[in-house]
C-alpha cells in the first residue's frame, strides 16, 4: 500500500465517536434555542446587509470567491454564493478574539509600549535546538533535577524520549509534581497540588537568583463564556537603567516564568541566548508598515478577524516570539485591536445567566518586525497546535 492509499484509508477510516455526536447535537440545540430566544440586529450587521442587498441587486455576488464559470467543464460541483436571509454577516461568527472587560487586561508590562520610535534594529537569536543523545539526556536530567531542588522538591524517576524535533524529559518528583523539559529551554512544571504555593516558591527562587534586577509580575486576564476569569501571571526580571533593547530582552527572556491553569511554564531560558548576536542584528520595519500589513489581512496569531481594515487599534508593542517550532526567536509587532461588532457576538456567545454588558472583544495580531527585505534570512513561523497560524489577504471574504 502506498502513502496516498494509506492516507485515504487512515482518514476515511476515522469517524466521529457517538459521544462527540451526542455532545455536538446538544450544543447545536442549545445554540438554536438561544437564537430563537433573542435574535439580534446589531447596527453593523444591518449595514453589512445593506451592502449585501446592493451587491445582489446589482447582479454581483457578495463573495467574489464563489463565482461560477459555466464554460468550465471541469467544475462538477461549482459552489455558488451563500446568501443569508438575515442581516448578519456570517464571517463574524468565525472570528476569534479574547473577551475582556477592559483592553488594559491584555496590555501587560511590555517596556516598548509608547516607545517604539526608539527602536530601529534588534538582534535575532537562533532557536537553541538540541538533538537526542546520551549527553542531552544527562544534561536535561541535571537541569530538571536542579529545578526540583530549587523548589524544595525531591527528584524521583524520569523518562526520556526522542521527539520529532527535540527530546523530551519528564521528571517525576516524589510528591507527584512533574517537571517536563522539551529540549533545554522549554520547561513545564505540573504541580501535584497547591500550584499557588509552588508558584510563590518559584517567585522567591527567581528573586534570589536575580540579584541586581527587579522582579516584576505581569498579569493578563480574559474571561470565559461563563464569565469566569482566566488569568495568566508571569514573572520576569527587569532593570530600568538599561537601554530599551535590553529591557525588551529581559522582558522576553530573562527568568520569565508563567503560571496558567495551575501549571507553570518557561518559554525560553535566557542562559543560552546571551552570546553576542554578532551579525544577527536586523533593521526593523516601521510601526506604520506593520499596521498596514495587518490591515491588508497579512498577520499571524490565534485570533482572526475578517475585517482587519476597520479594526480599532488599541496598542502596538514589540516582543520576541518565543513560541516553539521556529528557527529563530525574533521581534514581532504585537497589535492589540478591537471590532465594534464583537460586543454583539459576545452577547450571543456568553452563557445563559451571564450579563454580557461588561465585556468586549480584543484581538491580538502578530506581524514580524524584521524589515521584510531581510526576512528570508530569518524565516518567521508561528504555530497553533500543529498548524501555521498565518492569515493572508486571500483568507478575507
Amino acid at each position, binding site marked *: 500500500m502506498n*502513502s496516498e492509499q494509506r492516507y485515504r484509508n487512515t482518514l476515511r477510516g*476515522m469517524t466521529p465517536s457517538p459521544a462527540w*455526536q451526542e455532545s455536538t447535537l446538544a450544543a447545536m440545540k442549545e445554540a*438554536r434555542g438561544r437564537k430563537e430566544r433573542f435574535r439580534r440586529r446589531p447596527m453593523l450587521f444591518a449595514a453589512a446587509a445593506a451592502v449585501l442587498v446592493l451587491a445582489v441587486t446589482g447582479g454581483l455576488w457578495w463573495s467574489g470567491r464563489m463565482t461560477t464559470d459555466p464554460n468550465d467543464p471541469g467544475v462538477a460541483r461549482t459552489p455558488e454564493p451563500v446568501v443569508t436571509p438575515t442581516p448578519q454577516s456570517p464571517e463574524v461568527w468565525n472570528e476569534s478574539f479574547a473577551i475582556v472587560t477592559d483592553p488594559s487586561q491584555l496590555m501587560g508590562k511590555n517596556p516598548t509600549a509608547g516607545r517604539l520610535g526608539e527602536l530601529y534594529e534588534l538582534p535575532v537569536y537562533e532557536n537553541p535546538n538540541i538533538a537526542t543523545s546520551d549527553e542531552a539526556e544527562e544534561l536535561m536530567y541535571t537541569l530538571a533535577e536542579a529545578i526540583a531542588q530549587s523548589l524544595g522538591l525531591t527528584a524521583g524517576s524520569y523518562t526520556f524520549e526522542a*521527539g520529532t524535533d527535540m527530546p523530551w524529559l519528564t521528571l517525576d518528583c516524589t510528591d507527584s509534581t512533574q517537571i517536563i523539559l522539551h529540549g533545554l529551554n522549554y520547561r513545564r512544571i505540573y504541580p501535584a497540588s497547591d500550584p499557588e504555593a509552588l508558584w510563590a516558591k518559584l517567585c522567591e527562587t527567581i528573586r534570589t537568583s536575580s540579584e541586581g534586577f527587579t522582579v516584576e509580575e505581569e498579569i493578563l486576564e480574559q474571561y470565559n463564556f461563563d464569565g469566569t476569569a482566566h488569568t495568566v501571571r508571569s514573572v520576569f526580571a527587569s532593570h530600568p537603567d538599561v537601554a530599551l533593547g535590553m529591557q525588551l530582552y529581559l522582558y522576553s527572556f530573562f527568568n520569565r516564568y508563567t503560571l496558567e491553569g495551575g501549571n507553570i511554564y518557561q518559554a525560553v531560558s535566557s542562559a543560552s541566548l546571551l552570546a553576542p548576536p554578532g551579525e544577527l542584528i536586523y533593521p526593523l520595519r516601521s510601526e506604520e508598515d506593520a499596521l498596514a500589513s495587518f490591515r491588508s489581512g497579512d498577520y499571524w496569531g490565534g485570533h482572526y478577524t475578517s475585517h482587519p481594515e476597520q479594526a480599532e487599534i488599541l496598542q502596538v508593542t514589540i516582543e520576541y516570539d518565543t513560541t516553539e517550532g521556529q528557527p529563530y526567536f525574533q521581534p514581532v509587532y504585537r497589535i492589540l485591536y478591537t471590532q465594534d461588532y464583537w460586543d454583539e457576538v459576545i452577547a450571543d456567545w456568553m452563557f445563559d445567566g451571564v450579563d454580557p454588558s461588561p465585556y468586549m472583544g480584543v484581538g491580538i495580531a502578530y506581524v514580524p518586525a524584521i524589515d521584510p527585505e531581510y526576512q528570508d534570512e530569518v524565516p518567521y513561523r508561528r504555530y497553533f497546535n500543529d498548524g501555521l497560524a498565518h492569515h493572508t489577504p486571500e483568507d478575507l471574504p
Partner: protein
Amino acid sequence: MPSLNSVPLSCEEILDRYGPLVWRMAVQGTGSVADGEDVAQEVFVSLIRSDPAFTDDTHLRAWLIRATANRCKSWGRSPWRRRTVPLDDSRDAAAPSAESSGVFEAVAALPAKYRWPVYLHYIEGYTAAEIGQLLGCPRNTVLSRLSRAREKLKDALKEEWS
C-alpha cells in the same frame, strides 16, 4: 435554522450528513482528534448561530469547509495558548494507528495552503477547479500547490506520494 432549498434542516440531519466531513477536516487541520472535535463542534454551533440559507448541498458544503479551515487556523482562543499548549498535545489523544499515523502527521504538518488542497482532493474528492473556488484561488494555483505538497510529502515520508 439553516435551510436547504428553503427547507429548514434539523440539527440531526445536519450532523448526520455533514458530521464526518467537518470532523475529519478538523482533525486533519488541528492534527489532533481532541482538538479537532472541539473545532468541529464549534463549526456546527456557528452554523446554527449564523442561520444561513443555502440553495443547494454544494453551497452548504462550501460554507462548512471554509468555516472549518478558518476555525482550524484561529484555533486557540487564548493569546497565551502559545506558551502553554505543547505542540505534541495530540500525543495524549486518540490517534490513527501507528502504521498510518506517519502519513496523517505528514499531511497535518504541511502549511495550510498545501494541506487543504491535499485533504480536499484525496479525501473529499474535489477537483482542482472546485478546490480553487472553495479556497479562493485559481485552479492553476491549486495544481501547483498539490504538486508542491506531493514533493514535500515525498521528502517527509521518504517514498513517492502516488
